């Protein structure tokens, strides 16, 4: 019995030793303190790699998984400094230019005087689309500029409460009027594309500076090179502000925080440049040129105005008129 117990004891001791030995060896090899941060994620390293720190969260809002995006400070600089400069220079610069031009050149008159005969230039549908888009644009421009410049220019004048109420309505107007504006840009694109493809006549027109300086009138079809530029600025600029605007209006549906910031930058820059160009368009369509407003107001222009500014278009119209009036000549061409 005793020997059996001794043998069991020896076996138990042996087992205990073999288990205990590696443990004590490990304890001797390990350093006295552990440093778990040695191999952990580090803030500065993550920021340097991605300029953003993201992880996994437990709430449905995926945006909240980004815990740090210092790019917000760069976007702030754009919004508070860069955009103010671009917008200020573009809009004020254009106004200064137009005033100076008006003082030097004055209104471009119909040199041969009014003929008394009228020529239809834009039909009711064209004018309707133009004025719908134009009205939307003016409201969008004012409410848009309010977001960037309002708190410096308007807030001190009317106070925080009134400015907030106005800005709230301005935001609604900006959001809702984007729809008819976008529709207007699309219809303008389709409606006037035929007359707005650049051609050789435009090169000549541009070489002569459109006759802006001096009293020469380079020939043009229905739309001259300047008008074609306005057309393409409206179509392309309108497309860009609409696309970026809808990204901002439906936040985070299609893009992440970086995308939202880029969308706002593009929207802001294109929009202030768009406003500057439209100021020039409004100028030349109203006080800048005698007889121009009639084209969009009642739809017809004086024949002499048309002869001076759109000689080739008048010739086309006359030819079409004649063919329409005398069906015999139309049926049997001379050649």
């Amino acid at each position, binding site marked *: 019995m005793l020997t059996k117990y001794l043998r069991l004891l020896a076996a138990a001791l042996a087992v205990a030793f073999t288990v205990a030995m590696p443990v004590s060896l490990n304890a001797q090899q390990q350093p006295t303190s552990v440093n778990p941060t040695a191999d952990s994620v580090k803030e500065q390293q993550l920021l340097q790699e991605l300029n953003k720190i993201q992880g996994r969260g437990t709430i449905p809002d995926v945006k909240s998984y*980004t815990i740090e*995006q210092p790019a917000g400070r760069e976007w702030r600089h754009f919004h508070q400094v860069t955009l103010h400069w671009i917008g200020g220079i573009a809009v004020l610069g254009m106004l200064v230019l137009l005033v100076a031009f008006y003082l030097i050149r004055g209104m471009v008159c119909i040199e041969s005087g009014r003929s008394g005969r009228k020529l239809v230039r834009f039909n009711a549908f064209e004018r309707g689309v133009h004025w719908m888009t134009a009205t939307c644009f003016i409201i969008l421009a004012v409410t848009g500029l309010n977001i960037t410049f309002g708190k410096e220019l308007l807030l001190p004048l009317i106070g925080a409460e009134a400015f907030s109420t106005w800005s709230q309505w301005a935001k609604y107007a900006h959001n809702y009027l984007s729809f008819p504006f976008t529709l207007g840009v699309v219809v303008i694109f389709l409606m006037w594309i035929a007359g707005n493809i650049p051609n050789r006549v435009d090169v000549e027109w541009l070489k002569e500076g459109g006759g802006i300086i001096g009293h020469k009138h380079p020939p043009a079809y229905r739309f001259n090179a300047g008008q074609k530029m306005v057309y393409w600025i409206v179509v392309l600029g309108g497309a860009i502000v609409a696309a970026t605007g809808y990204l901002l209006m439906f936040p985070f549906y299609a893009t992440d925080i970086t995308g*939202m910031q880029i969308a706002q930058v593009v929207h802001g820059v294109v929009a202030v440049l768009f406003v500057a160009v439209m100021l020039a368009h409004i100028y030349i369509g109203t006080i800048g040129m005698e007889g121009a407003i009639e084209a969009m107001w009642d739809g017809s222009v004086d024949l002499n105005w048309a002869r001076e500014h759109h000689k080739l278009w008048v010739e086309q119209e006359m030819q079409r008129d004649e063919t329409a009036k005398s069906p015999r000549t139309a049926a049997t061409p001379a050649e």
Partner: protein
Amino acid sequence: MARMKFLCDADRCIECNACVTACKNEHEVPWGINRRRVVTINDGKPGERSVSMACMHCTDAPCAAVCPVNCIYSTADAVVLHSKDLCIGCGYCFYACPFGAPQYPRVGNFGSRGKMDKCTYCAGGPEADGSKEEFVKYGANRLAEGKLPLCAEMCSTKSLLAGDGEIIAQIYKERVAKRGYGSGAWGWQTAYHETIAT
């Protein structure tokens, strides 16, 4: 006056989300809005860390700078608060915020943005301290009662610290000195343009 700050000791955060729950309950924050959240970086990999993040109440706050109606302001304690009466829900503060703090209820047109909501450092808003109107709009005003933000107060591992910047920086420094390691004060460089030398 104190300069109030948050400090999340990522080496202590166990991602229990008690801070998130405490915040939601204390301020009766509506469904879909989270003033505070816990995010785990490198989840499941060696060296993963969790960080509890909310508004950091930045020095020279970017949200306040970009707000088109100037509705965001800093208090004497350097807590960044805002007026929901003036906010128009444009969303610009979210683009500028380095920490994704501003939240918007989906009540606006196109289901997008209502008036912004964010962490108030348990300090309410512009209304009278402790008033019913203040509670409805911004939640409890613990600071006016002499209490610190609840998220930090009830953090089980004392990972999240709130209080005067110098004091919590000192606590963190002592901790790091004693245990021999620390991954730093997350977000401090971005929020306060300074970090804690350890």
